[in-house]
């Protein structure tokens, strides 16, 4: 019975008034945030669509990486950020998606677009199957089980070499670049740019879909139900929320994106092997990015992905080990000092409203 104190009505009123800040209603502009985002998103997409015409190959790849991390972090957040079921298994889904996509192209000569889509759905299906037993576990045990399953997937893919070619990896045909077309009809120029940067555009589309899905989840009742599970799963169930169904749905939704992203990534790099695509760093990236920006928010993972990737990409390319030090240190600092991430910090200061549209 600790923590239960008698309060006089006056004290209660006092507390209501002085609980941190004035208990203001959400500001009027909050209602229109959706439209603002739409405009921003369309603007960003238009600019990013034009970007390969302006930038050199290095910067296009950098932008592709930012988009990849947005897709990974935003999708990780759909389950783990909203419901609190932290998954250390995103790398596993990324790896599985890479392999499904690469093997479809390698064996079946599937054209790459259906291969990417199938990779996403195959991963989501796997999540559906493993979600039923694993999501019955309480949060921390789910987290550790996912760590184990992710490693298990890597070992199985490595060992099953009759199908996956094992440790030697899978080579994919390199995209044949056309010579740049800089004159003539605009439509030809565009087709030329799109052709030469297929993987970039695919990743752009995937990131946009991930963001739209994340917004839809974050602002819907489904999102509130996930948050209720995070805050008090037992009470949520007792209030009639179908927690199992909701968690599994979120898990499948969340795993589609690393799967599809893995397949695009496989095509982008041209060679995948188990150590490179099942690398724990893919999970670490998604997690570090999300918690830095703010897990359980819509904008958090996006902001985190842009900031963190632009700042650290040089480190990742030149010294992956140092990169790991950096991300590990970042996770420690965020958990200790800004557990809610940047956005929650701003919300606690009262600089941003506490709305689900953030």
């Amino acid at each position, binding site marked *: 019975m600790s923590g239960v104190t008698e309060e006089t009505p006056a004290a209660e009123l006092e507390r209501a008034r002085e609980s941190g800040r004035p208990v203001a209603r959400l500001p009027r502009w909050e209602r229109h945030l959706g439209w603002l985002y739409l405009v921003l998103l369309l603007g960003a997409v238009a600019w990013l669509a034009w970007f390969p015409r302006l930038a050199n190959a290095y910067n296009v790849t950098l932008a592709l990486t930012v988009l990849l991390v947005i897709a990974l972090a935003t999708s990780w957040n759909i389950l783990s950020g909203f419901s*609190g079921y*932290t998954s*250390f298994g995103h790398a596993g889904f990324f790896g599985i998606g890479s392999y499904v996509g690469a093997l479809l192209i390698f064996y079946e000569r599937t054209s790459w677009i259906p291969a990417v889509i199938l990779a996403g759905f195959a991963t989501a299906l796997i999540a559906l199957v493993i979600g039923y*037993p*694993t999501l*019955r*576990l*309480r*949060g*921390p*045990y789910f*987290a*550790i*089980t996912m*760590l*184990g*399953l992710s*490693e*298990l997937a890597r*070992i*199985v893919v*490595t*060992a099953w070499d009759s199908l996956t070619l094992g440790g030697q990896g899978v080579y994919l045909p390199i995209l044949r670049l056309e010579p740049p077309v800089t004159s003539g009809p605009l439509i030809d120029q565009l087709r030329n740019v799109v052709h030469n940067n297929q993987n970039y555009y695919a990743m752009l589309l995937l990131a946009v879909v991930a963001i739209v899905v994340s917004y839809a989840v974050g602002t819907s009742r489904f999102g509130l139900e996930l948050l209720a599970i995070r805050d008090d799963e037992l009470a949520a169930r007792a209030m009639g929320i179908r927690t199992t169904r909701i968690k599994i749905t979120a898990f499948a939704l969340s795993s589609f994106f690393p799967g599809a992203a893995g397949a695009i990534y496989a095509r982008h790099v041209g060679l995948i092997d188990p150590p490179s695509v099942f690398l*724990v760093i893919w999970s*670490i990236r998604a*997690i*570090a990015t999300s*918690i830095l920006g703010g897990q359980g928010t819509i904008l958090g993972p996006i902001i985190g992905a842009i900031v963190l990737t632009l700042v650290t990409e040089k480190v990742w390319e030149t*010294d992956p*080990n*140092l*990169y*790991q*030090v*950096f*991300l*590990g*240190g*970042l*996770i*420690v600092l*965020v*958990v*200790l000092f800004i*557990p809610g991430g940047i956005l929650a910090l701003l919300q606690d200061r009262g600089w941003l409203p506490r709305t689900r549209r953030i």
Partner: protein
Amino acid sequence: MDLLQVIVSGLLLGGVYALLAAGLNLIFGVMRVINLAHGELLMLGAYATFFFYDTTGLNPLLAIPLVAAAMFAGGMVLQRLTIERVVGQPLLSSLLLTFGLSTLLTGVALNLWTTNFRSVVYEPLTGSLGIGGLSISRSRLVAFAIALVVSGATYVFLRRSTWGKAIRATAQHAEVAQVCGIDVGRVRLVSFGLGSAMAATAGSLVAIVFTFNPEIGRVFIGKAFAIIVLGGLGSFVGAFLGALTLGVTETLAAYYTSTQLSEAVAYAVMVGVLLVRPSGFFGQAES
């Protein structure tokens, strides 16, 4: 005869695992923190032993008390700076924190020592002994004996000494322990130091028996979780039996299939047991 050989070899392996799992168990018991960086503490112990041997050329077993003492101190520093701040918070906070620490320590080690595998090859500890027709690796036998002694000593320490009683009281019920005049903050500090020292000792033994690189932490944490799943929380004996079971199963898997698949045993055990018995991880630790 082959089978017996494999089983004995697996049992010897289990001793080192037990030491690792016991430390993890102790830390969880006292502060309800799942230490995902436990494998990295082992990895640091292995490197410390390696460098001791590399610079002095002395018997690497002499390094064990030094390494344990250093990691006892290092563990306490780590506890004060980081872990203590998340005690009492939801398990997920500490899980993320120790995940960050694990990533950080692995990264630092990779920077310093690269992914190259190393091992401590000390002549008197190499080769095998022939006992009753069995050929037993000398280093494994020594490692098993030391793991057994250290585990046993810790067990007696927790059972008999005043500190041990304080630790167990805190693990049972922290608030009650506090009311009874136990400084639970210091108990947590010492427990984490002790758990770290046990992990480091296991690391020293790993350095003697196996080859290692900065990434083995992740492999060993998987094994430690599998053992705890098998043996149950808080049960010293249970964890010991779990460790022996895992050691034997892994060795059998390596013998009958491939080394690669034997790596999967720990994860498969962990996932399998959890799915059959969802409450079975760290028991009914929180309701």
